[in-house]
């Protein structure tokens, strides 16, 4: 089941998203930035309602709301994102500079 879900989430992964695509969701406060783990892992934690892992990631800021300085940097650097919808939330991850697809 988990592998099926991961595969489905992988299919939903949106890549090369622009800031203007995700900004409305950031402004609504439903977008979360994921650092250090893959979007799929983060999405899976939400999808399986793994509260303990999510709590830990919120604590160590693996998952956090975008900060103002993030927005400023993204605007300046024209950052692109990978995005994963886990309704009603949107998980975001910065594209690594020069990351391979």
């Amino acid at each position, binding site marked *: 089941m988990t592998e*099926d*879900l991961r595969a*489905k*989430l992988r*299919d*939903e*992964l*949106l890549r*090369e*998203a*622009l800031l203007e*695509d*995700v900004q409305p*969701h950031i402004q*609504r*406060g*439903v977008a*979360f*930035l*994921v*650092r*250090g*783990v*893959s*979007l*799929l*892992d983060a999405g899976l*934690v*939400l999808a399986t*309602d*793994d*509260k303990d892992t*999510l*709590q*830990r*990631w*919120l604590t*160590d800021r*693996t998952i*956090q*709301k975008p900060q103002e300085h993030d927005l400023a940097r993204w605007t*300046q*650097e024209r950052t692109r994102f*990978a*995005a994963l*919808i*886990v*309704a*009603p*939330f*949107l998980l975001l*991850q*910065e*594209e*690594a*500079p*020069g*990351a*391979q*697809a």
Partner: protein
Amino acid sequence: MTPAIHLQSALPRRLRWLPGLSCAALLAACTEPPPQRVLTGNLTDPRGAPLPDAAVTLNGEVALTGQDGSFRLTGIDPEPGDLLTATAAGFTAWSLPLEEPRAFTVRLIPRPHPTAATSATLDITLALPRPAEVDRTLFLSLGNGQLLPVYLYVGNAEVTLTVPAPGEGFALSAISPAPGPFERAFAAPPQQAPPQGALRLALEEVPGQTLTATLRNRPQGDDAPPLDLAVACSRQGSTFLAGRLHLDAPFPPDADVPLLLDTRGATCDLVATLDLDAGRGDARHVAFSSNHDGDALSEQPIPLDLPDLLPLAPRLSGRTLTWTPHPQATLYDVYIAPDDGDRVGAPLWSATTDRAELTLPELPAPARQRLDFDAARPHLVRIVARLAPGFDLQGAWDWSAYHAYVASPWTEVPYSTLAPWRPHPEDSP
């Protein structure tokens, strides 16, 4: 252009995640807006008279004082240590760190500017030693950290400045940025503040430093990657770009190419680096020697051993990653990812360091989890150096394309090299 994102999952309904109360509650708690507070106060001069039309700033929010000197900052969420700043014409800026954000009524008394009433307006003429086409922007420094750009095309340039009155230690100098490759550098000695009137400022031409770069073992052929060389000048802890060299293929074998550097007339240590993307994986050697006498760089040869400075692929020695430092970077990010196309996202490890070395066991818990999940696959390691935020190029050089310096290419590292990887005690359930 990507399509607009709508929060409608394409998952089949049977697989669509409906957030359970626990995770949903956790994230929903994060979505609640921070409490917005209001800061009010009054701005007065030392005699207690209200100061109208003064600006009060906190965390980027600005409020202007009314005729009664009162201000009202709204939409703020201050924390201890945030700086409340007030500026008013004729007064020095006044700042107050908030120690207790709940103390929202603050009375500000700016100090009057000690020389505001005695400042002078000067018409300054910048004069070249001889008529010449310059076509560049110089920066006039008033000695107080402020830089005024002055465009100098040919001959003289005139500019009007408001400066302190004589006796205030006023200094004026012209600074030429080092955008490289540059044409000329000019400097003007510090000036004593004259009385009101005109001042003719003679510019002195500052010779640049000419180095010769010898390229060896460059790949031949028209399709060889270009050489993009940056030379930085490091002096007393600050680093600036002294010059750049860009060469397109084909390269002549063992070519000597002149490299004009602007070291701003000062002693400095040179460090060099290459844009790795411009020549990935090449065997190459670049040696430098100076042919400029009478300056700090005249000791020959300049000990730049580029093979040691080249940003080579990260070497994994045991659990330690090493790489070549970037002269302008103090912040490094490490990316480690499996090669299956998973999004690696933000770096697994970031650090401000002057050492080009990271020890893998220091990776945080998510990184350990990342490394653990599939031992059968090779992994990719990449190190990216970010330029220091305080990197100073006088605002004249566009580094927008260099905001992130790739210190290494993606390099495949067999998982076995990373292993054995024992779970950290904190990771154990």
